[in-house]
C-alpha cells in the first residue's frame, strides 16, 4: 500500500529529476562541475596512493642504477638538443619558403601536459577527466594529444581545476581525417566497436578512394578544431558500403585510449 509519505518521497524525487533534466545546458554544466568537485579530494588521495609505491621503489633504487639512469637521460637530452637545432633550422626554412610563396605562417603547437584523473563510469560514453582547468587557461574544443603527439580527443567542458575530454571514437568527437596516400583521401572518424577502444571507422570516403592497410591517417585540418597533420592511426581494413557508393576504413588508433595516464592539451 502506498502511504502518504511514500507519495511525497516519490513526487519529490521525480520533481528533482525532471527539474535537473529541464535546466538549460549552461546551468547543467555548472551544476555538474560543482557536484563533481566533491570528488577532487578523493582523486587527489587516489593519485597520491598510486604514486606511493613508485616513490618507495625510487627511494630503494641502488646508486649504480640511478647513475646509469642519469647517464642515459643525459645522452637522450643531448640527442634531443641536436634534434631541436635541426628542427629549428627546418622551421626557419619552412617559414622563409612560406613567405616566398605568400602562404600564411604556421603557428607552432604548444602542449600543456595533464594527468588523466578519471574515466567515464558509464559504458556508453568515452570521456576522461584531466587535472587542467580554466585556471590553467584551458578552453572548450581544444585538441588533446598524447605526449607522443597522437590524437586523443577534444575538451568538451572546463571546470576551474579539471576538464572533461571526449575521446576519439565517441559520438561527440567526430574528426575530419586524411589518409597519407597519393590522392589524400578524406573522411570523417566515427565510432568503431563498443568493446575495442583502439578501433574507429573512417567513413564518408569516396568509392574511388585508394586505401590500403598500413597507410597513415592524419587530421585534415577541416572543421576548425583540430589542426592539420596530427597523427591519428593506421588503416587496418577497407570495405565498400552503401551498395558500393562509398568506402569505409577501419583505423587502428596510435594512442592507447584504454590506458591513458598523461595527455597534452594543445594551445595554438
Amino acid at each position: 500500500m502506498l502511504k502518504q509519505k511514500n507519495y511525497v518521497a516519490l513526487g519529490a524525487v521525480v520533481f528533482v529529476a525532471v527539474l535537473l533534466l529541464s535546466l538549460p545546458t549552461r546551468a547543467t554544466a555548472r551544476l555538474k562541475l560543482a557536484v563533481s568537485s566533491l570528488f577532487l579530494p578523493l582523486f587527489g588521495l587516489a593519485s597520491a596512493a598510486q604514486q606511493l609505491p613508485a616513490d618507495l621503489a625510487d627511494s630503494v633504487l641502488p646508486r649504480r642504477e640511478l647513475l646509469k639512469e642519469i647517464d642515459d637521460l643525459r645522452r637522450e637530452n643531448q640527442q634531443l638538443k641536436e634534434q631541436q637545432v635541426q628542427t629549428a633550422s627546418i622551421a626557419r626554412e619552412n617559414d622563409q619558403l612560406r613567405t616566398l610563396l605568400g602562404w600564411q605562417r604556421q603557428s607552432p603547437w604548444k602542449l600543456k601536459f595533464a594527468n588523466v584523473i578519471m574515466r567515464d563510469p558509464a559504458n556508453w560514453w568515452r570521456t576522461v577527466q584531466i587535472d587542467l582547468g580554466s585556471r590553467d587557461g584551458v578552453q572548450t574544443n581544444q585538441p588533446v594529444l598524447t605526449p607522443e603527439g597522437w590524437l586523443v580527443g577534444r575538451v568538451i567542458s572546463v571546470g576551474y581545476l579539471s576538464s572533461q575530454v571526449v575521446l576519439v571514437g565517441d559520438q561527440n568527437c567526430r574528426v575530419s581525417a586524411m589518409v597519407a596516400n597519393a590522392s589524400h583521401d578524406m573522411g570523417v572518424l566515427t565510432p568503431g566497436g563498443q568493446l575495442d577502444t583502439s578501433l574507429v571507422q573512417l567513413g564518408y570516403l569516396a568509392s574511388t578512394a585508394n586505401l590500403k592497410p598500413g597507410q597513415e591517417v592524419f587530421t585534415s585540418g577541416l572543421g576548425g578544431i583540430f589542426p592539420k597533420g596530427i597523427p591519428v592511426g593506421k588503416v587496418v581494413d577497407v570495405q565498400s558500403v552503401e551498395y558500393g557508393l562509398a568506402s569505409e576504413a577501419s583505423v587502428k588508433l596510435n594512442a592507447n585510449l584504454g590506458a591513458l595516464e598523461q595527455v597534452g592539451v594543445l594551445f595554438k
Partner: protein
Amino acid sequence: MSLFQPILILSFALLTVFAEAAFSVPRHWLGAQVDLLPALMVYAALQADMFTVSLLAVLGGMWLDSLSANPLGVSILPLLAVGFPIALRRGLILRDLPFAQLVLGAAASATVPALTLLMLLNGGRHPLVGWGTLWQWLVMTAGGAVATPALFTLFAWFSRTLGYQPHTEVGFRADREIRHGRILK
C-alpha cells in the same frame, strides 16, 4: 530515526561512484565497467526507509552523472524505478536469503542501464550502442548480481561493528528468582 544507516549507504554510494571512475580494472579485463549503484539500491530498498531510498536515487544519480557525459539527472529515475517497487513490496520478499538478493541484484543491474539508455536515446543523445552493448549489459547484470549479497554481508558487518547494538532484555533475573525450598511439615 537513526542516521547511521542513511549515512553509511550514502557514503558507500559516493565511494562506489568514485571507484567506478577512478579504477577501470573490470573495463580492462571484461570490456565493461560494473555499476554497483543498482545493487546498493536493492540493499537500501530492502533494509532502509523510503527517505534513504529517495536520497540514494537523487544523490547517487547526480554523483554518477556529474562524473559522466550523461545529462545531469538522467540516472535518478532509473534508480528510483528499481528501488521504489522493491521498497513497497519488501514485506513479501525473503530478503535475508542470498538467492533472493542475487536475483534482485541481477534484475536491478539489468534494468537501470537499460532504462538509462532508453532515456538517453529518447532525449536525442547519441550514446555508443551496438552489439557490444549486449556484452556490457551482461557483465553489468552479472557483476551487480554477485555484488548484491556481498553488499548485504558487508553492511551487516558494518552495522554490527559500528552501529548501536540493540539492548536485549533477558527474562531471567537472578534477584527475582523464586526459590522453592523443601516444604517442612
